[in-house]
Structures are given as C-alpha cells and as structure tokens.
C-alpha cells in the first residue's frame, strides 16, 4: 500500500523532501529541457558531418582544428625507453673473477663470513645510497676460475651459473636486502660509528622486490630453508658436482644474520663508542620492543 510505504519513509528517514523520496520523477518542462530524448536530439542536431554519420574521432581530438591533417596528439609518437628509471634500483657489479683475485691477493679473508662491509673496506667499490644504489650484484664472469669456499652475502644475483660456481667449491650464498639508511651505515662502518648513532633496524624489502628475496632459486634471505636445500641439490645435479658434507664445514659457514640485523654480532639499537671501547645498550622498554620487533 503506498500509504504505508509513505509512513515507513517518515519513520526511517531523517529528512523527507521532494528530492529525497525514491519516487518516479515527474517530468516537468524544465526537466525535459535538460534531458532531451533521442528524437528531439536528432531534430536539433545537424544532419551532416561526422556526428550524424557515426564517425567521430576518439575523445581529446578536435577534427575541426586538424583541417585535414592528423591532430598533434596523433602525430607525436610515444617512446617509453626510460620509463621507470627514476625508481629503478641499481646494483654495482662484482664478478667472480675479481672476488678470486681479491682472495689470492689476501685483501679478503675467506675463512670469515664475507658481506658488504668487508667488500667495501677494500675501497674498490663506491656505493652511494642517495643515487638509488642498493648494494652489489654478482656476475658470472670467471665462473671456471673460482675455487675457494666462502660464505658470501650479496644483494642481487642474476645468473644461476654464479650461484653454482660458489656452491661447487663448498661455499654458501645468500641474497640480502638493505634499505638506504642501513646501507649508509654498512658502506663506511667506521665513519658511521664515529657519528654516534644507534645501529639501525633493517626494513623489509619493497613490494616489487619481495618476490625476489623470498625465492629459493635466488637464495633469498626470506626464503624457506627447506626449499633452499632442494635447490642446492638440484643445482649440484644439473652442473655435475658433489655437495660437500655439511658437518665438516666450520660453524662460520652456517652463520646467518637475522632479517633485522645489519652487522654480524651486533644488534640494532646498540650505540658503539670506539674511543672508550664500550657498547651502550638501551634498557627502556619502548626501545627494546621497537628494536626487537
């Protein structure tokens, strides 16, 4: 019953006006002027031209100003060669050949874990975090020459051959992400400690990098260790070498950093005083929960 419906509206609505009610519109003359129907449109508009012949160009193009030639927006081509270059991450290359050379010249000690501060202390790589550089990447030049077991931590690996070359000699490889603030601490560690700031807590990688760092094939640090073991076995069978016995390796090859940790042996939140040879640790609850989260 329409009366009951009207009473319901009065009960449930805050304000009842002509415009609020869900009723069929009364078509006044004013309304008809604003919303003409198809026949009136046809009688008003011209009977010639692209509009009546259903051959209008797409929106944004003015056929009148084009005057027989293509409009500007169609003549100028799009060349998206450097699209996304402002957000792209850069990694400086280090080849297996240079690594082997550094080990032979005794600039790097393969008995201890080799990560970014060790490689930057050789002063051969200048990594600038403010230029969108996120660390080092391993290239596969010199894969046949490499012959030392090493516990390596690098930021990007593009080829499977490089991973196989390291694991063939009995080494371990992990790929690790560092955000720019942690990078500036790692690249020049001594300068960072002299600045007097607490060790930062490393962030999780951005969304377009998470797929890479959770991939066991790239030995990402967030990948499942079960799957990483399978991939090691698969590479050993593919390239034809034997995996070494893990019990005979020294415990430093099993060493891995926590995903929030930057330096081996040092926790985030600690302040290091090089002059007095002390470490200051926060005891306040607020800081402890932050640095352990």
């Amino acid at each position, binding site marked *: 019953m329409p009366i009951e419906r009207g009473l319901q509206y009065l009960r449930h609505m805050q304000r009842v006006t002509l415009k609020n009610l869900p009723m069929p519109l009364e078509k006044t003359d004013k309304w008809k002027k604003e919303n003409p129907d198809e026949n009136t449109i046809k009688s008003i508009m011209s009977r010639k031209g692209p509009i009546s012949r259903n051959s209008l160009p797409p929106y944004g193009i003015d056929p009148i100003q084009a005057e027989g030639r293509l409009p500007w927006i169609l003549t100028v081509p799009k060349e998206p060669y450097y699209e996304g270059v402002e957000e792209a991450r850069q990694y400086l290359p280090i080849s297996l050949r240079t690594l082997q050379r550094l080990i032979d010249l005794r600039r790097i000690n393969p008995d201890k874990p080799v990560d970014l501060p060790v490689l930057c202390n050789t002063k051969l790589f200048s990594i600038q975090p403010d230029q969108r550089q996120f660390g080092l990447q391993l290239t*596969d030049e010199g*894969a*046949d020459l490499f012959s030392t077991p090493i516990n390596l931590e690098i930021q990007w690996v593009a080829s499977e*051959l490089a991973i*196989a*070359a390291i694991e*063939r000699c009995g080494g*371990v490889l*992990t790929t690790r992400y560092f955000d720019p603030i942690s990078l500036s601490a790692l690249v020049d560690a001594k300068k960072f400690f002299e600045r*007097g*700031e*607490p060790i930062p*807590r490393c962030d*999780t990688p951005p969304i377009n990098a998470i797929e890479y760092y959770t991939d066991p094939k790239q030995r990402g640090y*967030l990948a*499942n*260790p*079960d799957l*990483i*073991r*399978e991939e090691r*076995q*698969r590479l050993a*069978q*593919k*390239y*034809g*070498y*034997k995996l070494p016995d*893990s*019990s005979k*390796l020294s*415990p*430093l*090859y*099993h*060493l*891995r950093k*926590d*995903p*929030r*940790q930057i330096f*081996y*042996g040092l*926790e*985030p939140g600690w*302040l*290091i005083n090089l002059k007095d*040879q*002390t*470490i*200051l*640790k*926060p*005891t*306040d609850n607020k*800081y402890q929960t932050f*640095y*352990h*989260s």
Partner: protein
Amino acid sequence: MNIISNFVFRQSICLSTRHLLINNRTYKSNLSYDKLFPNSKSLDTLSGPITAPTNESTGKDKFNGFIPTDKLDITHRHARGPGGQHVNKTLSGVEIRFHIDSATWIPDWIKPRFRDMYQSRINRDGYFIIFSDETRHRLLNQAQCLDRIRALIRDASIIPKGLSEEEKKTIEQRKQSASSERVIRKRMHSLNKQDRKSSSIDLN
C-alpha cells in the same frame, strides 16, 4: 638525536675473539627464521632432509634422474670454431664418457634399448661418449652434457603401450567389413560395365 636514559655500561669483547661474539650471542627479532617458518623441518640451509633423490636408482625401478658424478669420466678439451687466442688456449669443451654395462645407476631394463637407440654415440668397447662446446663456460657445457644424458635415458625408458585384445578384435572386424563392402562395390561396378556391352542373345 634520541637521548637514551638508564643505559648500562658493559665492557666490549675485543676483536680477536670475534668468533665468540658471533656464536654466543643470538639476536632474535619478530622476523627471525623460527617465527617465519615454524613448520620447517630444519632451519639450516646446509644440512637437513631433502625430498629430491640423493641416491642412485636401483636395478628394476624407474630412472630417478640422479647421476653420480664420481663414476663419470669428465675431460676438458679444446673447443671448436672461431675465437682466436681465447678458443685456442682455454679448455672450455667438456667430454663425458662412461661404460654402459658397468653403470649401476641406469636400471637394467633400459640398457639394451639404450644401446639400440644410440648406436652412433657408443664405442666398440662399450663406452658412451658425449661432447659439448656450445657455450663459453666450462660449467655450462658440463650442464648441457648431463642434461642430454638424462634426456636420452628418459627417451629410452619409454616403452610404447601395446594394443589390448579388444582393440585387436575391433581392428580386424573393421578390416573385414571394409573388404566385404569393397567386394560388393566391385561387383556392382562390373554389372554396370556388362550391361553396356551388347548381349549375344539379341543377335539370334
């Protein structure tokens, strides 16, 4: 710069005992590995259980894909083709040989088929030879040789499924019905041809 109040002084351990520092302290955040992967069988990436095959396949089973590299004879040779000094000096070609009959890692029922299918790669002494020099790296050439060996063994292990008795019966039935129809057609065609001839009875 944040001011940390109530901090504790502690004498730091000196750098020569870095091993102690690394091994004894364990820092665990919310993203530590035992929280990210609570159901994993072993958190160590070097030691732990693996589901992929790590041992040879026994005599009568299917070939499981495992090739023991100790039992293969791998030699590095000069590669062929252009390349100047680099190709002449570096040994980037890889040749792999193994004796088929004494290979325990190939199942026994595959060996005779293998020998039949790949006669051109087998020696008079019974050695299977394969050589690859297609890439510039020795490791990649080795990987290609092993990949080919696995593919050849897998091809040799495929036995085509024979026809069952029902299928044979239906095939024979179809042949017979086709031939009987053909005979009928032929007879009709010959009647047609005979009708076109003049018959000897009308002349009388």
